[in-house]
């Protein structure tokens, strides 16, 4: 154990969410597919595609009809710039947090867009998904999105 320095007592303070949780049928399938390099969305009874998938239609609360592959390209619908990334961030170089509406989806997904500045990836920019090389079944299996051309 580390000795107190100059008589000052120190205690570690780690902010974490120390609960075990199960993913349930929909998110479990989504994250398993991510690990395998596939993106899934949920088709609602009303025909809309929810990406990332939810167990229930966000508009009606009805159970979804099923899961199906989602497009890996889409459009930025909201964005903010992270000029000085911290260890908590998805990327360690400056990037944009963005809501990305994938083609065919009625909802948007939160992730990082790798671009040189916010001017290079404003709202309306077309982006495509970049997979992480090592995948473990988490949201970080998607490394980021990047502008198309």
């Amino acid at each position: 154990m580390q000795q107190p320095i100059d008589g000052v007592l120190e205690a570690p303070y780690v902010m974490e969410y120390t609960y075990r949780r199960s993913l349930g049928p929909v998110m479990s399938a989504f994250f398993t597919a991510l690990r395998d390099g596939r993106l899934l969305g949920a088709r609602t009874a009303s025909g809309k595609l929810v990406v990332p998938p939810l167990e229930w239609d966000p508009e009606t609360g009805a159970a979804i009809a099923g899961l199906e592959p989602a497009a890996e390209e889409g459009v930025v619908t909201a964005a903010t710039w992270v000029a000085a990334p911290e260890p908590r961030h998805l990327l360690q170089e400056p990037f944009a947090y963005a809501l990305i509406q994938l083609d065919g989806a009625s909802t948007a997904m939160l992730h990082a867009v790798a671009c040189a500045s916010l001017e290079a990836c404003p709202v309306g920019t077309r982006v495509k998904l970049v997979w992480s090389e090592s995948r473990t079944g988490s949201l970080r299996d998607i490394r980021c999105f990047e502008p198309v051309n």
Partner: protein
Amino acid sequence: MSTFNTSREEIAIVSFVELSPAEASQLDEIETIQTIVSRATDGAGIARDRIGFTVSGSCDMLVGRPFSWIMAMDGAGVSKPIEESHVEMDGAWALYEAWVRLQHGDIDAALIYCFGANAAEDLMQVLALQLDPYYLAPTGINAAEVAALQASAMLASGATERQFAEVAVRAGLAVSVEAALAEPYLHRPLRASDLPRFSDGAAAMVIARGDYARSVCARPAWIQSMAHIADGHSLGARDLSKSPSLEKAARLAGVGAKATQIVEVHAPFGPQEVIALEALKQAGLSADAKVNPSGGTRAAQSVMVAGLAAIGRAASAIHRGEASRTVGHASSGPALQHNLIAVLEERS
């Protein structure tokens, strides 16, 4: 107006006090609560033995230890056992629980208190723990960055940065629109004047029924109605530039049923005030209602207190005879996800 959201018993806010940030920062939690509770009860001529129910609102994540509110409860006086409850939320939701409890009609009064100290960690990061642990939290996003995405969505649907700057001036966080617009971006499109200034704080309120309310308060602020609704958890599943939950809550509470003179809005990030006012307008809020005449809560934002403070200030305006109908709003979540509305009225 839904009968579910209307007071079945005559219930009024009869007392409200909040600590100034300067005062709160000098006291520990128990001293803080002892001070506000004694001011809201003894100080207002309300006998402690008439209080049949006590509810507190606070967040363990701010203090960094579990069940911190149990220790803090000593300050409320529990040597003679009391019937009490707690919400891990802003004190506004403690008020909601107390209001529901009083509708049973068997007790005279209820005490509500709430407190929030600055976090041991980065507060913007702590507040992001409200996000879902599957799709949102793993991105590492913090509360200010979520609010920035929301502001970006607003700009994409026609709002302007000038509107944000006007809110900053009204909140006392910028001397002029031009000065606000000249600030560099912190979380583009948010500037420093769009963010809350966090401070320690605490507040206490007493609500009471019928004749007892009239006996302890010259002008009780009668709770006509209250309603609270949350939007879905997913940030991308709704139009972030609007607040459907707030509009719905305001409709359920009957905001538009009569003319309102004062509205106290609790929007932690400036642009959210624009969203909140638009939702209230859609629900029929009087166009000439004064917005945040108290100055609002953003210049000294005490997390877990600010929402109850907004409602308390709306009640105080009636206590002081400055208005006959006011609306108080409380919110929770970095993208204004959960909204509570209280409609308060003077009655002769």
